[in-house]
């Protein structure tokens, strides 16, 4: 384990090849504790690959990634204890009820029955699904399922929450609800969040700092307000468009 002052994630010259295809080409960035850090970029830029490597699902071709000082390859088991990952197209076990699913997930993180109960109660609150949690997951709408999954991700109080497109495919109401929940929860519990999103409104609303990935490299990084003034843009969408044209 490396000593890290207040670093939550450190990505160092990260490269990833799928056969001959280069997905990441020497990626470097740092995420600080209690920060909400957003990765933005076009489809195929390498956002999901980066998150999957940090979540210990994929292994880098070269380079290093540390989560709170733990190497994601060498100390994957330690990393998994402190992260909670929400994939973009995640599902839940359809033949379990929402409540059973939350119990199942909480049992891996809780050390006692009381702790488990608290986690599940918190998830019930976050999801806002109330009585529907007693129904099987297969009866849920897409929005309900995503609320359940966000609740599952946050209830365990991870040191690092990795959210891949947290509101992808959701309608305005569900997306608004979830963004609000994420922001409130993160501020209350001091969780570090690393997320990826296509939605610039979402990124601006949620993130303290953002990084633009293009062709497997970070081409821009900074605070949203700083980036907007640097590129004389009214929102991050314009910044995004200008930078990708230049690159």
């Amino acid at each position, binding site marked *: 384990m490396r000593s890290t002052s207040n670093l939550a994630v450190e990505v160092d010259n990260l490269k990833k090849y*799928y056969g001959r295809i280069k997905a990441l080409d020497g990626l470097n960035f740092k995420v600080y504790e209690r920060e909400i850090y957003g990765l933005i970029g076009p489809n195929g830029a390498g956002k999901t690959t980066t998150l*999957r490597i940090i*979540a*210990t*699902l*994929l*292994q880098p071709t070269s380079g290093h990634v540390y989560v709170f000082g733990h190497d994601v390859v060498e100390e994957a*088991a330690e990393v*998994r*204890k402190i*992260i*909670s*990952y*929400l*994939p973009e*197209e*995640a*599902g*839940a*076990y*359809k*033949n*379990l009820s929402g409540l*059973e699913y939350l119990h*199942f*997930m909480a*049992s*891996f*993180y809780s050390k006692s029955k009381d702790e488990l109960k608290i986690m599940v109660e918190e998830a019930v609150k976050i999801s806002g699904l109330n009585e529907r949690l007693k129904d099987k997951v297969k009866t849920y709408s897409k929005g309900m399922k995503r609320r359940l*999954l966000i609740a599952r991700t946050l209830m365990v109080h991870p040191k690092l929450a990795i959210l891949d497109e947290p509101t992808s495919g959701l309608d305005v109401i569900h997306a608004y609800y979830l963004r609000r929940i994420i922001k409130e929860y993160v501020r209350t519990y001091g969780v570090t969040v690393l997320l990826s999103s296509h939605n610039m409104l979402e990124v601006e609303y949620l993130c303290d700092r953002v990084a633009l990935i293009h062709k497997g490299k970070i081409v821009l990084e900074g605070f949203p307000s700083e980036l907007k003034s640097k590129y004389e843009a009214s929102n991050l969408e314009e910044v995004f468009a200008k930078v990708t044209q230049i690159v």
Partner: protein
Amino acid sequence: MSNAFRTLLSKEVKETLRDPKILIGIIIMPMITFGVMGFFMQLSFKSIKEAALKPRMLIIDNDLNTYSQFLISTLKSNTNATLKIFNRTALSNGLKFAEDHNYPIIMVIPENFTQNVTLGLQAKIELYTLFKRLSLSEGSAASMPRALISYLNSYLVDKRLKSLAPNIDTKIFLSPIKTVNFSIIKGRIVNVPPESVVNIITSQSLTMPITVLMVLVFAMQISASSIAIEKEEKTLETLLTLPVSRLSILGSKLISSIIVAAIGSSVYLIGYTYYLGSFSSLSTIETSISAEKIGLTITPLGFTLLGISLFLAITSALVLSIVVAVYAEDVRSAQTLIGYLYFLIFIPSFALMLTDINSLPTPMKIILYIIPYTHPIIASKAALLEDYLTITYGIIYMAFFSLILLYIASRMFTTEKVITAKLSLRFKRKI
């Protein structure tokens, strides 16, 4: 068993048993199929039995004399037959009546029947069986009148012999040599004809391959589905980032598959036994000889070795199907991929159902020995014959095979292969 493992196992079993596809395909369908098949078999055998024991018979008595009367009165007093008797009538008249009133058997006693019997000439009785529906019960209806004629024959032979030599034993006269059959099993002489031993061996050698076949097929389907469903429902990535060892995830999938496969196989075997039982409803006399009586039993050591052999076969089949299913993206393609492995189970099961491996040509023998799933089938017979060395060789081979597969599976689960492995089925894309 750690808490995390127990939680994973409980989730796996719940998810599998609650999956309607598995519940219907593996538990409910075999019950219904065998239940319905057995029910219809029993109905069919019941009608055959009834037709045999309570035949409807039309008798045309053109003799109207002592022996025809004797035959008819024996039929009336000793059987449950429904009789309709016509005196001195043409067959065509009787046939029309029989067709109109559903009498499948017509017995014609010719005019000089008694006279021929009395004179010691060969007398004739004509039995006509009417096939209107081409059913088995129609065919069996003539069995009782035939048995009765046979009885009458014995009676007449006995009577004639006694009139010639009152002290003669008819049985000995007709069969001067009697064969007494013995079988030697595991060096022990038992007073049982070889046919009975063959019957027992046949039933045993059918049961084991069918059991192995069903258990393995169920287990492979379930374990392949358990990994493919995680991919299809997009739950695998989350599962793999949980703070639980990847080998526990693999282990829970293997054990839950064994549990569900055991339930499925039990249901299948209960159904199969019921179905087989429906055949025995045809027999009226208890002729079975137990395997214990002739010494064809398995010792505790034999049972243990057979259990290890089966366990290794199941384990290796489960791991093999998981390794293959990792390459599938959904349940359907996993089932397709698993289907390609079934030949490994079907070939030894069918080849060894009625044949002994040693009687096969050498190349065939080698092929069968290479297939791991041959060994539990061989072991079942070897256990009966107390040939523990053969079982042990099979166990060593299967243990080696299972270990290699377990190593491959654990490598897949502890690396990114479990996420990234994909098999492009090119032929599918052309469709």
